[in-house]
């Protein structure tokens, strides 16, 4: 390998490319000094590991003539150092020849850049993923220089195309998912707006029902109630003490009587004691009730979630995920807030208002009567504003849930949004929903901003009335100054409490609505119900018999009288055009739904009499939309069999053709796949879900388009594995590619919900019926594709 002479000159200052590149990245000066006159900088990158994997900071500089770099991790010693000054770093330089190559190998956490010439590698550098981008850019720049731009561009577009095709198919899949679940909620929303009265009636009942959840914590709840009673009563003591303080101490003193100052100490001590007691009691009360309500909310959450898990598939296909999540999450939280904060406030306010009224009447009935005179007016006002508030509030609630649903829709569908470049439309959609929230809240606020000060006006007016009437009564001698002072103190509290009670109206409504939503869910019954006396089937033989099976989604019948007997160990291929009911039939066999009429028996027993989980333990399902959970590859494969050994997991992955791509993942079997397996391709997800189904060693295997996202070559590999696994199991396989079903003992051709043909591949071809046409349409398409390419 030829190397450059050590003598070098400062780079020509007028070089255009140099100025341009320097603007992008600042180079360490020692490298710049090495460049010759007229030598052009092509690319630079940094590497960050040395031969011993210690962090370092080094440069690789590619010019149009040579590669200059700091100490490599390994090199063949014939390159000459350019470094003149003593430094820990050594700079090396290689002249580029036609045969020179730069290769980059990426492995888990460490990448390697290799410089190779005709007779092998001459040097290599190590880097972490932090430098990957610039290293690959340098490799690209090198390839471009060597190979010329045209070849490079062609390659880049080819890669881009392949990536796009993959994303597109995923995008369409998720588009179908989002669209399907969308409509139902709109109906729900409309219902909520059109019948606010009936909702509220039910809501109050729901709110009372929530209290039944406090039963297990009754002791603490009662303690909390008592504490709040006592603490409310204690807050009434201080104004009561001011009465004798004024009448027996201050006024006599002012009018010249000799009152001992020690009396004042007594009253002050009493006032302090009352304040301290009120503080302690309300602290204990708040803590106790918060403790209870936190547990009520936690129970509610678990109850709601476990109930949701028990519901059948059809419940979920009609709901928006965002809506269900908010029921388990924020609705229970609102109830928690209501119970721990609002309910306490409300009950203590009611108590206080009643007690205050009592005390006032006891002190002086006449003055009390005058004081409380505006109260009925306030009650009427509250009543009239309540219905306005409730309507406004329901609207605000609906607007809010609309807004969150927009989020819940578009975030999982982000690929579709981006694929169709609809970001700005989604932003607009969100903005519109957000504006509706704003508008609804504005309406509530208009009512509030008017109503709140009105209440203040009333309390001011009440004070005025008390001052006026009180002064008159003091003049006429029926009331003492002390009593009047006490009255004024009480009345301020009285109206304060009334005001905060009114503020609670919307909070109560909000909690009631939440409770209603939770009970709506809790009252749903699973449509695929466990039989009252379920039979545990143990391990089934796998003889499946369908007789006269009809099935409806809502009012639309999609299966019209299916009769089919599948013998143990037989492999049935379900064939038919898209929408002919293949998936539906598979779902019935998995018992995700029950037939509208007709029966399905397994080993002669009606599946409805079998224990649901006992029966499903016999099933291995690979569904059309492979779903993976957020977790490691191992956890996902072992989902149905958490106690499986690692050897079993690896064996299942091998059988499903997933082993090698798993090994290529950053942490192999311990790698995390994102939410819904987002970080994997459709085919990879399918292979993982095949592995998951194989691991449970099912006696009935249901494969619904299990290999549809896998390329033909991989499918052959998986097919071989599946073929081996199919033996000895009853298998229902649905496949788009008819060639996949070659091994099936019998093919069942469905058309628009009825079986139109059954037989082996050869029989059906000989019959020249629907299968014959399907088969030939596919082979012709395949042939055309082959000749066209």
């Amino acid at each position, binding site marked *: 390998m030829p190397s450059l002479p050590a003598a070098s000159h400062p780079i020509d200052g007028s070089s255009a490319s140099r100025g341009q590149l320097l603007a992008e990245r600042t180079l360490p000066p020692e490298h710049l000094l090495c460049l010759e006159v007229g030598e052009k900088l092509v690319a630079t990158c940094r590497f960050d*590991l040395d031969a011993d*994997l*210690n*962090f*370092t900071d080094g440069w690789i500089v590619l010019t149009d003539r040579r590669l200059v770099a700091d100490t490599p*991790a*390994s090199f*063949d010693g014939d390159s000459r150092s350019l470094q003149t000054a003593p430094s820990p770093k050594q700079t090396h330089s290689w002249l580029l020849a036609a045969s020179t190559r730069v290769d980059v*190998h990426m*492995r*888990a*956490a*460490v990448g*390697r850049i*290799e410089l190779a010439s005709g*007779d*092998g*590698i001459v*040097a*290599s550098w*190590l880097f*972490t*993923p*932090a430098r*990957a981008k610039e290293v690959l850019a340098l490799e690209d720049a090198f390839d471009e220089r060597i190979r010329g731009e045209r070849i490079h561009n062609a390659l880049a577009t080819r890669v881009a195309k392949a990536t796009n095709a993959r994303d597109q198919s995923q995008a369409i899949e998720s588009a179908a998912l989002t669209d399907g679940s969308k409509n139902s909620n709109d109906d729900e929303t409309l219902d909520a707006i059109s019948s606010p009265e009936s909702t509220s009636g039910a809501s109050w009942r729901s709110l009372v029902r929530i209290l039944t959840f406090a039963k297990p914590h009754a002791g603490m709840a009662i303690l909390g109630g008592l504490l709040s009673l006592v603490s409310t009563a204690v807050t009434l003591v201080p104004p009561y003490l001011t009465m004798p303080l004024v009448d027996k101490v201050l006024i006599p003193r002012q009018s010249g009587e000799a009152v001992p100052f020690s009396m004042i100490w007594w009253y002050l001590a009493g006032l302090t004691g009352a304040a301290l007691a009120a503080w302690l009691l309300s602290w204990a009360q708040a803590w106790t009730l918060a403790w209870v309500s936190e547990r009520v909310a936690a129970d509610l959450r678990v109850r709601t979630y476990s109930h949701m898990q028990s519901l059948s598939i059809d419940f979920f296909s009609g709901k928006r995920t965002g809506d269900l999540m908010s029921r388990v999450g924020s609705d229970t939280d609102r109830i928690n807030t209501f119970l721990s904060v609002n309910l306490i406030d409300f009950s203590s306010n009611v108590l206080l208002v009643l007690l205050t009224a009592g005390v006032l009447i006891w002190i002086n009935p006449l003055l009390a009567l005058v004081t409380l005179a505006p109260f009925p007016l306030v009650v009427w006002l509250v009543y009239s504003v309540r219905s306005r508030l409730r309507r406004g509030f329901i609207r605000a609630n609906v607007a809010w849930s609309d807004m969150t649903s927009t989020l819940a829709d578009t975030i999982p569908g982000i690929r579709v949004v981006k694929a169709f470049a609809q970001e700005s439309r989604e932003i607009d959609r969100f903005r519109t929903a957000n504006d509706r929230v704003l508008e609804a809240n504005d309406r509530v606020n208009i009512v509030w901003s008017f109503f709140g000060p009105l209440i203040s006006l009333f309390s001011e007016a009440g004070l005025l009335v008390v001052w006026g009437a009180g002064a008159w009564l003091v003049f006429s001698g029926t009331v003492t100054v002390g009593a009047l002072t006490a009255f004024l103190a009480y009345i301020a509290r009285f109206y304060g409490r009334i005001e905060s009670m009114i503020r609670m109206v919307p909070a109560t409504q909000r909690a009631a609505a939440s409770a209603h939503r939770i009970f709506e869910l809790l009252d749903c019954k699973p449509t695929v119900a466990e039989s009252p006396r379920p039979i545990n089937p143990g391990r089934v033989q796998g003889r499946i018999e369908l007789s006269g099976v009809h099935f409806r989604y809502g009012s639309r019948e999609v299966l019209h009288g299916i009769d089919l007997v599948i013998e143990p160990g037989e492999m049935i291929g379900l064939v038919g055009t898209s929408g002919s009911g293949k998936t539906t039939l598979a779902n019935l066999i998995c018992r995700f739904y029950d037939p509208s009429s007709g029966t399905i028996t397994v080993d002669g027993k009606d599946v409805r009499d079998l224990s649901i989980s006992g029966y499903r333990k016999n099933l291995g399902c690979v569904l059309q939309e492979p779903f993976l959970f957020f977790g*490691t590859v*191992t956890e996902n494969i072992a989902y149905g069999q958490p106690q499986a050994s*690692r050897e079993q997991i*690896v064996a299942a992955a091998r059988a499903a053709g997933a*082993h*090698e*791509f798993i*090994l*290529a993942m*950053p*942490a*192999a*079997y*311990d790698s995390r796949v994102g939410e819904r397996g987002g970080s994997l391709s459709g085919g990879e997800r399918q292979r993982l879900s095949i592995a998951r189904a194989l691991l449970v060693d099912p006696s009935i295997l249901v494969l619904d388009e299990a290999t549809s996202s896998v390329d033909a070559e991989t499918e052959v590999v998986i097919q071989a594995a599946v073929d081996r696994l199919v033996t000895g199991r009853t298998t229902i396989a649905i496949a788009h590619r008819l060639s996949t079903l070659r091994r099936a003992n019998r093919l069942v051709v469905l058309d628009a919900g009825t079986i139109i043909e059954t037989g082996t591949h050869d029989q059906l071809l000989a019959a020249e019926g629907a299968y014959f046409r399907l088969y030939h349409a596919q082979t012709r398409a395949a042939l055309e594709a082959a000749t066209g390419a």
Partner: protein
Amino acid sequence: MKSSDTIPPARTPTEWQLEQLRHGHLDLIDRHGQRHSNVDVVRAFPISVPAGPIAIVAADGTELAWIDSLALLDAPLQSLLLKELAVREFLPVIKRIETVSDSEPTEWLVSTDRGLRRFTVAHTDDILRLPDSSAVITDSFGVRYLIPSVDVLDARSRRLFETSL
């Protein structure tokens, strides 16, 4: 380019040979005598069972060999594989945390057993605390850093670590 040492596996009934070449290349010669150059050594369960099975994979991802446990192999082959794995499983150990910025994404400056390093952590989810009080931090480029035990860090580092969670 000449091979520096050829190690015939002895104790396991392996039908292949590994050959270590210069520049960190590892070649595998299978039982048909075919040479697969620049193979990769992969732990199947690097986090849950680090001592568990190991696969040798060709450059194109094809599995060439499967070793149930390193312990079954001869010492020289074992050390060769371990050396290869060390490169693959580059995992700097954090000795001290110098600074952590306040807002997400957090900027970290740490002293590791491989020198000083500055990196960015995108989200607190990337800081994984394990039950044995160790922690693994993954930076925005996917480089992982190990804290073998949070409890034995100095007080300042520990405080910085805790507040970053």
